[in-house]
């Protein structure tokens, strides 16, 4: 197995990360290039750990990682990766006494963004991109959850990073902001590698050319959203009666039930329902093990 040392993407071979005796990542192999890659998985599947390893915030316990062609275990390489990367952690904790401008200026200094004038120009640009320019003088503590999320996004966008790692970036955003976010990420993906960890399936459907589904620290699906959907064909049913115990189902608005049948099993109530075209969400639920869990 050869490592892809491309200078614009990410290569991972046999990545393992353990917390004590628990393995959060249990041997992950992947190569990521320009474009948006969606990272799907249940809570605890390993998405955040994978992103933190790629963001050099967390050391791998085993395996090899190359980010932008560099080895995060080497101090100099790690610094270089951080210079060229934007990272939005899952729960960014921003200093509440900073103003919006002050916080982004602080991050911009740490991202080594040129002289004061250039840096401030870049900060203003980032604020405009996430629609926070009008709140530039507001203290962070005065911002709503959605605004803080946009602030985190702005901090990740500073300096036009070659690699953008976004951990649940659309939590708390209103529909209008989410559309704006998609537009922004789509624009960035034209020249950068974007990895998006989310539970918002619509965002993945709208943005990602590639989807990785993680379950128990392993990649259980790696392909396009269409491929993911096609793998779910024949496993999504709608029926009038409540399905038998052991399959994932939920009641729809019209009183019917939507039923997900995991791979390798048959719908026990197949006579009562009809197979329907799966959505990406159905496929996600099937491949992240949701169906198996309730079995």
């Amino acid at each position, binding site marked *: 197995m050869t490592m892809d040392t491309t200078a614009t993407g990410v290569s991972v071979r046999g990545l393992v990360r353990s917390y004590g005796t628990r393995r959060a990542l249990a041997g992950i192999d992947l190569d990521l290039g320009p474009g948006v890659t969606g990272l799907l998985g249940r809570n605890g599947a390993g998405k955040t750990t994978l992103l933190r390893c790629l963001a050099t915030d967390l050391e791998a316990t085993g395996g090899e990682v190359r980010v932008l062609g560099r080895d995060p275990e080497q101090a100099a390489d790690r*610094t270089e990766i*951080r210079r060229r990367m934007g990272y939005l*952690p899952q729960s960014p*904790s921003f*200093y509440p006494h900073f103003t919006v401008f002050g916080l982004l200026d*602080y991050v911009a200094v*740490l*991202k*080594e963004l040129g002289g004061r004038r250039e840096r401030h120009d870049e900060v203003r640009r980032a604020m405009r991109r996430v629609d926070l320019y009008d709140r530039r003088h507001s203290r962070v503590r005065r911002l709503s959850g959605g605004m803080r999320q946009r602030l985190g996004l702005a901090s990740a966008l500073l300096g036009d990073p070659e690699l953008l790692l976004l951990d649940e970036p659309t939590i708390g955003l209103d529909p209008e902001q989410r559309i704006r976010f998609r537009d922004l990420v789509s624009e960035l993906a034209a020249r950068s590698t974007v990895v998006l960890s989310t539970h918002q399936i619509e965002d993945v459907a709208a943005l990602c050319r590639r989807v990785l589904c993680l379950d128990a620290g392993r990649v259980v699906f790696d392909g396009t959203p269409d491929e993911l959907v096609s793998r779910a064909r024949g496993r999504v049913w709608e029926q009038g009666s409540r399905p038998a115990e052991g399959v994932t189902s939920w009641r729809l608005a019209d009183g019917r039930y939507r039923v997900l049948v995991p791979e390798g099993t048959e719908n026990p109530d197949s006579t009562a329902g009809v197979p329907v075209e799966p959505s990406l969400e159905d496929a996600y639920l099937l491949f992240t093990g949701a169906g198996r869990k309730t079995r």
Partner: protein
Amino acid sequence: MSTGSTFGRLTLFNLRHLVTSPVFFLTMPPALFAPALTSQMLTLPTASGFHRYCVYQAMCVAVVMFVVTSFPAIREVRHSAGLALPLSPRARLLSLALAAVALASVCTAIQIVGYLVRVPVPIAGVLSPYAVPGVIVTSWFGPLAALTTVVWTRSFAPLIAFVLLIPAYLVYTSTTVGRRADVIVNRVETAARSVVEPLPVTTPGVTALAVLYLLLNALLAALLLSAAMARRDDGRGVRPVTAAVSALLAVVIAVTGVQANRAFPFDAEFSVDQLHGTESAPCRTRDGVAYCPLPGYESWVEYWHAALGPVVAAAPERVRPRVLAVWQAGGHIRRSLHSDPPEYSVIVTEYWDTEMEFSREGVSVDAAVLLVGLPRDREEPCSAAGQARLAVGAWLASADEGLSRRDRISVADSLLTRFDADSDGFALAHALMDLPRERVTAVLEEHWDTLTDPGTGPGELTELLDLPDPGSAEFPEADWQRSVWSEEEVLSWTEFPFPDCG
């Protein structure tokens, strides 16, 4: 861009944010300017006084900077982790420390410069070039302590405790009720004092002491910084190497402190050549009197001579050599560790205030005491009531005709009080001031030996001066209106007289 330049930019960023933080804006200006508005500048400032002032101001700056630095320290410890930025959390903490100590240094320097601008005349005495840097390092304790406590607690708890304890301490020490916490308060005070003044003796002109003071302060600052750096970024556990460095620094500080306390106890004395840039302290002679100032106090000879000259000049020429020298004794400094001032010397200290009459009075009275042969030892007080030489001495002490009558009476009273004069003695001394100077000097010239003999009473003096007997009704009363004392006070202390002066 290199990591170094990022560090520099971040340090400037931190500096700007510290200066513009509301806490700094509200607390530092009063700390900087209050001393200028409230403290009274001495007319003749000294190096020791200047050093004490600087230490006090550096402590004020340290207190303010503790509060100011706690906020960005929280930012670094609790709110900047996990962003995976090129500059490591330790480097960011170091940058904040650098910005905070730079700001503390600038604020302390402003205080020092402000003092130097306000001084009316050059500062007397000697200051080692290491003394002021040592003081500036004292101001670093505040910001570095803020970093260390915040890093280890990851909370505002140290700041809250500090902000509550300072007013509580001030209230406690300024009230008289409830002294149950005295032991604890005293221990805390002692501990705080030993940090700010690690040596029992502070003579800022002695190079060895100033270097030691600077060294101990620098070591303590390094200890605070390394203790902050010893905590891991995630707040759990310690970095073994940095923790070991901290422990080593603590041991070095303890050993150095103990050794320094042994080498320089509170009663340590230093020779002049241990003062910065000084090899000797030559005396200079004015009108037959040797003036022996400590190094740096040469300009004070004029003040001493202005006080002493008229006293000596009023005495008969043949007895003037009795005042050999004006000898400045300065705390821990001696011209030679094996020499004492000449026997007939007026001893002056490191303090002189041109606006306070008692500075001048001390020299005039001591000179008069020497001339008339009264005992100089204040440890064994005696009474010269009923001796003519007491009135002669009072007249000599107040012989400067440039003084107002009130000031002359004040000087005379100072001598009279020292030797337990009775109300007749006060009356005679005050009456002598009203006589023509030539008349008194002529009598003294002719009858000096008799009049300064302990066995000669005031009656012989009044007879020679054609004055009525001091106890008689014709003799004018003492000028109690201008006197420092009232007649009742004088009567009260003569009820329990000291032994007679021999």
